[in-house]
């Protein structure tokens, strides 16, 4: 089959070498730090067309295009590329793997240069703000003073908001999708169940499993739970209904229903590509996230950045009211913002799937910012 997907490569940038380690929100320090990142399109002469895409919990730097030899493109390929929502004919798109991650950036599975062993739980606790502070070094390294836009869904949306909170002068526009100003007790609760599943697995070994193999059972259960929260009642009915794997019930504790098979399959492929300790660290970072009250914009201050806030009707993990809270906060500070609640049945997954609607909104929003 002929494919026109352009081949992209992941690049790496290392910084914060001791003794100039990155100070973290916890009070600890981290360094050296490597960030895995990819870029698409060309940076223009006055460096005004750069867009930073931020990934969600299980994402990585590979947002679009194909890696040599891969069968599947990046995780948001339908949105990033020539002529797409984030049009790489016009814009220079950057995406980096977060710190704490396991897809090329420094995280608990990375080798600690002081001990020559994986950090495991000696890796410091990180926050969304720490992730963004690390990305700032990459943006400096690329020579970009002001980003045209920061955009992302779910945890990517949290990072986009955090960029505005940490570096308001360096962001012209922000597109937070399927996200909120803070993690709610329900979101924290789901994360905690996932973490408990991992830590209850005997293979976890207090995080020291890098020589013996990771706690696959626990991580897989965490992922299965995650997938339930990413769908909706309606989307599960549409996708699986009560369809059986075989013709009859097994009358055993086996996989009878397609929905069971799907979740197990999702868990199985996830443990092959994702580190259990990263899952613990990143979900904790999400739970600590809170930009409510005056933390997004300091009291009596306003912002020049423009916002496009997008939510999906059937998203019960990050319900639209949480996006509306962002918009109300922005309105109360006289910040230019638009909000659209897309009518979708896909639940939280919608931000990866409702491409036509998102493209229409983002395309026009960006070109108006770029022009103005």
């Amino acid at each position: 089959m002929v494919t026109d997907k352009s081949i992209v490569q992941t690049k790496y940038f290392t910084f914060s070498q001791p003794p100039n380690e990155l100070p973290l929100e916890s009070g600890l320090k981290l360094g050296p730090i490597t960030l895995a990142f990819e870029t698409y399109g060309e940076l223009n002469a006055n460096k005004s067309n750069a867009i930073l895409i931020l990934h969600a919990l299980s994402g990585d730097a590979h947002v679009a295009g194909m890696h040599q030899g891969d069968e599947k493109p990046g995780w948001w390929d339908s949105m990033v590329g020539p002529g797409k929502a984030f049009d790489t004919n016009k814009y220079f798109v950057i995406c980096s793997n977060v710190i704490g991650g396991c897809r090329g950036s420094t995280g608990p599975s990375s080798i600690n240069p002081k001990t020559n062993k994986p950090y495991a739980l000696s890796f410091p606790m990180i926050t969304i703000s720490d992730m963004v502070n690390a990305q700032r070094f990459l943006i400096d390294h690329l020579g970009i003073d002001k980003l045209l836009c920061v955009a992302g869904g779910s945890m990517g949306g949290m990072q986009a908001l955090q960029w505005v909170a940490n570096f308001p002068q360096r962001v012209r526009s922000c597109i937070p999708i399927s996200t909120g100003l803070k993690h709610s007790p329900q979101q924290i609760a789901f994360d905690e169940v996932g973490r408990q599943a991992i830590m209850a697995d005997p293979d976890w070994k207090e995080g020291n499993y890098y020589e013996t193999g990771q706690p696959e059972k626990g991580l897989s259960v965490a992922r299965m739970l995650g997938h339930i929260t990413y769908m909706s009642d309606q989307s599960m009915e549409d996708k699986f209904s009560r369809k059986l794997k075989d013709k009859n019930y097994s009358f055993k504790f086996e996989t009878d229903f397609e929905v069971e098979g799907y979740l197990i399959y999702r868990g199985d492929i996830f443990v092959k590509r994702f580190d259990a300790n990263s899952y613990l660290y990143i979900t904790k970072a999400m739970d600590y996230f809170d930009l409510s009250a005056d933390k997004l914009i300091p009291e009596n201050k306003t912002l020049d950045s423009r916002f496009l806030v997008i939510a999906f009707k059937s998203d019960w993990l990050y319900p639209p009211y949480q996006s509306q809270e962002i918009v109300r906060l922005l309105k109360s500070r006289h910040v230019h913002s638009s909000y659209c609640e897309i009518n979708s049945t896909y639940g939280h997954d919608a931000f990866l799937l409702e491409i036509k609607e998102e493209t229409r909104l983002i395309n026009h929003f960006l070109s108006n910012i770029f022009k103005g």
Partner: protein
Amino acid sequence: MSEEFQTKRLDYKIIYQIIEPGSRVLDLGCGDGELLNFLAKSKNAHVQGIEVDEQAIYKCVEKGLSVFHTDIDSGLRGYPDKSFDYVILNQSMQETKKADFVIQEALRVGNKAIIGFPNFANLRARFMLFFQGKAPITKSLPFYWYNTPNLHFLSITDFKNYCADKNIKILDAFYLGKTSTIRIWPNLLALDAVFVITRRH
């Protein structure tokens, strides 16, 4: 700088003329943003909209407008007092659940409110009700009883009485006929009305 607003809608023309250049304007039920867009471009107004229809939101974003996708009843929460010079409630007030609350909210977040609504006491409406015994269907009330979005039916006199009761000052009033404004017997002859109101201090 302001130019002629080329539109088929007489109510838009009237509202466009009311608003001074450079004003801060919020349109409640802004539709596809035609009026706001023209106010922004030709009168340099700082405009925002609230709209409940998803397709209309896409059209507003295409025009580069700031719009909030929500219903009018809950949309004004969060806006600080006197954020706008004008809050427009044109052909949308009668569709809100709590019209009184929405008007009071409009006068909280705006110095002035522009309220446009169909006149239920129009001659043709009276004729249909009185002689034919039917719920009125007119140019400004073009719906059957079973598909109308209107939740409140009011006349020009009703609105004036409301303003008097609620300590609201009427700054200006425009009465719309088929193609132009009218002056005489508005409660009988006008299809629509546009009021400019403010709070009495």
